[in-house]
């Protein structure tokens, strides 16, 4: 063998996005919009599992992790529900149909709702947190008979911030879902429940010994909800949470999303409370 500086071929680069075109933008609330996307490169749309996210790129502005909010059994068009909170999310929600965006992924772990077969299923969520849970809810409802009671406990800041309101009513009416809503702040005359979503957890009717919970929302809310669920007897290993961290790559390379030994982008975002609790209990870990 002769030593020469020969090299093998260049491998595919996980940092290079696919082009998708925005086909429809739907305004859900004051600051939250759902984008429907179709591939612009002629290739089939990506398949995904409920709970996974993509890295969405607004040309020239930046790239952010956004969960896929569509139906995993019907992945086209690709659906994302985005709350406008800063530079990139604003560029995405303000883009008009026809605009191309970059998509990398899908990345990360799934809610794996199948594991809850035969259990009562409790979805606990607040605000935009319903979007990452929606694929899991649709999956459960597509196999409704495989599960016991299905509960959706939803909290939002104000009545105007309630996401997918019509759809939640449909789930309640047609799919035997026990939907309970609460708002943090209510205007004068509001007839619904006022208070935090954790208060719903303590009172909701399900069998804690045979329940599986899926929780998505701000970290303080998830910790309180998971603690309350566990307090009622739901095992920590049957409580799953979706973690949010800074993510620059989505594929385990940039280091930003680390939570002690976890790369939240590849080991998560969905993780169980048995694993997360000791990490969530340390401030600023």
């Amino acid at each position, binding site marked *: 063998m002769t030593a020469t*500086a020969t090299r*093998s071929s*260049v491998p595919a680069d996980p940092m290079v996005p696919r082009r998708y075109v925005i086909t429809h933008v739907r305004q859900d609330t004051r600051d939250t919009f759902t984008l429907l996307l179709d591939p612009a490169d002629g290739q089939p749309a990506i398949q995904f599992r409920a709970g996974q996210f993509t890295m969405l790129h607004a040309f020239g502005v930046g790239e952010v992790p956004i969960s896929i909010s569509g139906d995993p059994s019907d992945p086209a068009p690709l659906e994302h529900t985005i709350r406008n909170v800063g530079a990139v999310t604003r560029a995405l929600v303000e883009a008009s149909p026809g*605009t191309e965006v970059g998509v990398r992924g899908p990345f990360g772990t799934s809610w794996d709702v199948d594991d809850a077969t035969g259990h009562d299923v409790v979805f606990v969520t607040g605000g935009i947190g319903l979007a990452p849970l929606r694929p899991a809810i649709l999956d459960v409802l597509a196999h409704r008979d495989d599960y016991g009671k299905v509960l959706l406990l939803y909290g939002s800041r104000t009545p105007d911030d309630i996401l997918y309101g019509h759809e939640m009513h449909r789930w309640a009416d047609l799919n035997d879902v026990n939907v309970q809503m609460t708002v943090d702040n209510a205007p004068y005359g509001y007839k619904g429940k006022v208070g935090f979503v954790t208060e719903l957890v303590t009172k909701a009717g399900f069998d804690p010994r045979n329940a599986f919970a899926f929780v998505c929302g701000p970290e303080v809310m998830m910790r309180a909800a998971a603690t309350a669920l566990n307090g009622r007897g739901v095992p920590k290993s049957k409580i799953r949470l979706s973690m949010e961290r*800074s993510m620059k790559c989505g594929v385990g390379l940039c280091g930003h999303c680390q939570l002690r030994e976890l790369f939240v982008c590849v080991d998560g975002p969905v993780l169980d409370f048995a694993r997360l609790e000791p990490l969530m209990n340390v401030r600023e870990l």
Partner: protein
Amino acid sequence: MDDIRILEPEGLDALIAALHERGYRVVGPTVRGDAIVTGDIYAASDLPQGVGDTQQAGAYRLRRRDDDAYFGFADPAQSTKPVFFPAEEVVWRGRRDEGHFTVERDAPKDQAVALLGVRSCDLRAVQIHDAVLADRPFHDAHYVARRDGTFTVAVACGEPATTCFCASMGTGPRPAATNEQTGEPAYDLLLTEVMAPEHRFVLEVGTERGREVADAFDTTRAGQEAQQEAIAVSDAAAARQTRGINTDTIHDVLRASAESPRWDDVASRCLACTNCTLVCPTCFCTTIQDTSDLAGDNAERHRVWDSCFSESFSYIHGGPLRGDVKARYRQWITHKLSSWQDQFGMLGCVGCGRCIAWCPVGIDITEEAAALGRMATAAGAAS
């Protein structure tokens, strides 16, 4: 591989030429300004001949040696990290035209690298980067392309600085012949510089392609005694190291130390300047910077080194998750000496000592590790 030879110092030029002839870009230690850095080597005269270094907590200085040693310093101020993993690079360039955009990657430079005179600690750091950036479900494609076909001429260390602690980390001063994770040969050629009774190199061949290169220049065959002589150089270097970390216990010590009072102590000294992560040969964290022209039709994404010491590192909408410096120091040392083990099956520190020398206030990773260990033991005994 039992192929041991003697290379006269005058023969270094022929070794370098043999690498160039085979198409390699030869990279090694060279003096730039007041420091030894890693740069292009065209001839032996580019090496820091007769230059030594003095390193201690918070200080790095070059000095003139009283001999002509080529590798008579501890480790270069900057490791080989930027050779395969530059501080900044273009991930892709995009052009937008009537709503459509196209994405282009820069083609990798079509020249493989020969590392000349890479230290045992830095060689291990390259292996660690291979595990982090290449041998993963998703890889850094630019790194993989740059690393492809690398030829390695390692140097066994004979001159540790006071900051070095590779012996305790099991990463030096003499490099292991195989990469513990992959089982692959760690180097193609290994040099040990011997100064007495006369100046020469013991050259050990590690691979077939190493043999092919070694056959291209003048050497004399030698036997086991020459290898013993080389080992004695590194053994003496190991014996001179005074710093160390207890690798048997450190993983669990840090696991148990999340709420240690030591973090307040170290945070009162740490400036969060990010120096330690920038000089560290294993730190791999990066961020992305997006740029575009005024019209917004041409955009570039740049991948740049980042540091867990910067406040923006953990930023999500609403604020940084590690606002306190103590949380950032905890992340750094816990990652290096504990969670890296869980992630990659190895520690993330090779004991090169750079973070100690380049810390403006002289914070010492070995001292912090020892203090955390003492406090964890005391807390364990008290409870």
